[in-house]
């Protein structure tokens, strides 16, 4: 099945084009339905298609040598992934896995290059998309590479239990991220590191502070 013209026109890559210009492009875009939990791109492998999420969500992540996953972004309807490898010709810098049932639109690398050559407008759109991606990744790099975020998360946890009331206070990862001035993805990683260091234990919907001394030390880290 080919992509819907109306949908394509609504996404950042193809916005601002006349229907007449967009129509031939829709014929290059193929629909692909994928189940939950499928790997649709693998870090280090060559990429042959650019993907646009039509519905559902895809997580883009990197895996470290010891098997730890760091989510870089969650790609939702209208957003793309695989673009970096498509445009620079190198291997995939990250993996992508479907988080639920997903409908993807895919466009072959060579077709996309031809589209860019024929439509400077799309080339400008792509630059904009990639530039804002660089901006997001830079702020993620900053947070991931400096220990201060872990220490801030440690401090947030410690402050929550200062009163030591019977019912513990409750915070979502989103709220902790806002309090620490970082992204949700970074909080997830910080909590895992705090757990590895033995300061806390994650027990389903509970964060148990198992060693206040270690938590204190992690607070002074940054």
């Amino acid at each position, binding site marked *: 099945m080919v992509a819907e013209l109306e949908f394509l026109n609504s996404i950042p890559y193809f916005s601002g084009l006349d229907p007449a210009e967009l129509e031939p492009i829709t014929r290059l875009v193929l629909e692909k339905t994928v189940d939950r939990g499928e790997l649709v791109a693998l870090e280090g492998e060559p990429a042959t298609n650019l993907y646009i999420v039509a519905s*559902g969500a895809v997580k883009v992540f990197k895996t470290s040598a010891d098997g730890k996953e760091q989510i870089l972004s969650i790609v939702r309807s209208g957003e793309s992934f695989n673009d970096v490898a498509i445009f620079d010709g190198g291997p995939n810098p990250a993996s992508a896995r479907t988080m*639920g049932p997903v409908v993807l639109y895919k466009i072959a690398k060579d077709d996309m290059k031809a589209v860019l050559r024929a439509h400077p407008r799309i080339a400008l759109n792509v630059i904009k998309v990639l530039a804002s991606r660089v901006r997001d990744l830079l702020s993620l790099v900053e947070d991931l590479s400096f220990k201060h975020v872990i220490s801030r998360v440690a401090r947030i946890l410690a402050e929550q239990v200062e009163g030591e009331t019977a019912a513990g206070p409750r*915070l979502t990862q989103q709220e902790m991220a806002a309090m620490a001035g970082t992204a949700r993805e970074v909080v997830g990683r910080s909590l895992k590191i705090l757990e590895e260091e033995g300061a806390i234990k994650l027990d389903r919907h509970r*964060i148990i502070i198992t060693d206040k001394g270690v938590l204190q030390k992690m607070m002074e880290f940054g």
Partner: protein
Amino acid sequence: MAEMPLIDPGKCDGCGLCVGVCHCNALAIVENVVTIDSGTGCDWCTDCEAVCSTGAITCPFEIVVQ
């Protein structure tokens, strides 16, 4: 009854993203709003919160001292 993620029906636009990502089938859309079945084995993976762009479903952690 097991603790379950919280839902704010007022914020939910019924997009269904969370339903698709939940690996224990705890979520469903009923009359355009997400509902939760507390009888399922939710493991607090927080994926539903991660994909929801309106903040309608949240997985708060209780912070306790051992």
